[in-house]
């Protein structure tokens, strides 16, 4: 059994004179959740859909479970082994929710229990409702259920929680975690930072059709120099004295009156120095918070843009 679930090398995909994916490399190991993170138009969906066999690469190689999705015979071997959730649609408008899920189960050899899966995703109450009359969230959850009902070893989810309310989003996350626990490999695209931070073992940040950073959320967020301490106190503290007490390379600023920001290599020693300086100055540091960079900070730093921009 090959160790990689997905191996994309130098993928290029053009639509007319627009280059959607421009030399993208992505490796997904077996097991675990990989989040492909990036703004709209970054090339996430094109990449996923090339893996699913919908698009033909203009250059580069794509292997999914060791098979080439661009080769009809190999794609036919691949399809029963993967689960697919498209970004939208994919279901007969007139089909009822449970009818469609049951049908998808029937196309597989060892499907999950349909009623149990439907109940888990809150689809039991709308089982006889036609797809076109389901709410957006119910449509999303039905598509998710259809992606996993065949007990696939690899699941592609294209923006699985887009437009979901917090409750439905939680149900989706819980299912993703249980699939991961039982050894299913999952690849999901998202432009929600918190989703990647919550779910993913590996994150690939995509921008402009290529992967610009890759690693575990911790690796991506770790930084020697950019951690922060924020606190509130009375305005106009003598920051010169504080700066002298703190180690070299630390910056201190009063961001807005009474709101202080310390940037540097934050360790317990620095915190102790900060609080003892406050004690000597008769200052109570309120709302003291040690900050760690988030994926959002990483993304802004890498691209110079807000993810949702």
């Amino acid at each position, binding site marked *: 059994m090959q160790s990689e679930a997905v191996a994309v090398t130098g993928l290029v995909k053009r639509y007319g004179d627009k280059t959607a994916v421009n030399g993208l490399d992505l490796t997904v190991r077996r097991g675990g959740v990989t989040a492909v993170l990036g703004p709209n138009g970054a090339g996430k969906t094109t990449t996923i859909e090339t893996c699913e066999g*919908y698009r033909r690469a203009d250059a580069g190689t794509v292997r999914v479970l060791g098979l080439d999705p661009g080769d009809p015979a190999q794609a036919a071997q691949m*399809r029963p082994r*993967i689960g697919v959730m498209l970004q939208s649609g994919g279901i*007969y*408008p007139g089909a009822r929710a449970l009818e469609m899920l049951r049908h998808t189960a*029937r196309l597989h050899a060892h499907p999950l229990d349909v009623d149990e899966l439907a109940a888990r995703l809150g689809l039991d109450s709308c089982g006889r409702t036609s797809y076109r009359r389901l709410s957006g969230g119910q449509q999303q959850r039905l598509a998710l259920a259809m992606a996993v009902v065949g007990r*696939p070893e690899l699941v592609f989810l294209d923006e699985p929680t887009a437009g979901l309310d917090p409750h439905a989003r939680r149900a989706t996350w819980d299912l993703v975690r249980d699939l991961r626990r039982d050894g299913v490999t999952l690849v999901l695209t998202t432009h929600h930072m918190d989703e990647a931070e919550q779910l993913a073992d590996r994150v690939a940040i995509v921008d402009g059709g290529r992967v610009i950073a890759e690693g575990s959320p911790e690796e991506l967020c770790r930084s020697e120099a950019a951690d922060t301490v924020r606190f509130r106190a009375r305005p106009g503290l003598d920051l010169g004295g504080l700066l002298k007490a703190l180690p070299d390379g630390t910056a201190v600023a009063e961001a807005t009156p009474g709101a202080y920001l310390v940037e540097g290599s934050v360790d317990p020693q620095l915190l102790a120095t900060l609080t003892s300086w406050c004690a000597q100055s008769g200052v109570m540091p309120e709302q003291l918070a040690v900050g760690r960079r988030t994926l959002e900070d990483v993304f802004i730093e890498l691209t110079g843009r807000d993810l949702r921009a």
Partner: protein
Amino acid sequence: MSSTSYAPQPGAAPIGVMLRAQTGLETKMLLRNGEQLLLTVVIPSVLLVLFSAVDIVSTTGPGARVDFLAPGLLALAVLSTAFTGQAIATGFERRYGVLKRLGASPLPRWALMTAKTGSVLVTEVLQVALLSVIALLLGWHPQGDPAAVLLLLLLGTAAFSGLGLLMAGTLRAEATLAAANLVFILLLLAGGVIVPLSRFPGAVRPVLEALPISALSDGLRAVLQQGAGMPWGDVGVLAAWAVVALAAAARFFRWE
């Protein structure tokens, strides 16, 4: 709740199971659609009753009006299901990504097409049964060889399916909806279904006679009304349409 194991156990169902499941679903989708039922059941039935009862179009040949009308409306039933209904349904399935999503399932494409054909045939069996009962109640006396009727119906289905899928796989869904309905009306009026082709000016008649609907209604009429043997001319026209339309559909059909 989380006691269920999601441990991978992938695999496609046996092809026979998939085909049966897909044919069943396609048939349900076809019959559940209200506009579809209007097209496939109500319109042919109403036309049959109306034109049998009222002498709007004086018919040619011997026998009662229903003997002339029943074969034409059987042809119309094939047109409505294999062409119009299938084109519209498939066009919207393509538009809504249904075909795309099925393309990532274990179901092979040929099996999807086979299932679609199966659902068309199931619907046609129901239509033919209903129209035959109505026609018999109106005094229909069918003649001829059932095998010839069956061959004509199958070839007609193949030709109209090819044309319907060609339209659904190349045009936008809305364009397919409009065009498929327009073609239905035009062929209903100008394809020998209820108006005999002999009523049309001689200049256009050769063109009209080459239409698949004309070949089907003319062939069915030759057998069922006049008790003729195999109408080879009409069989040839239908076979030619079937080959060309199915080849074009296979060549130009776009799945998304």
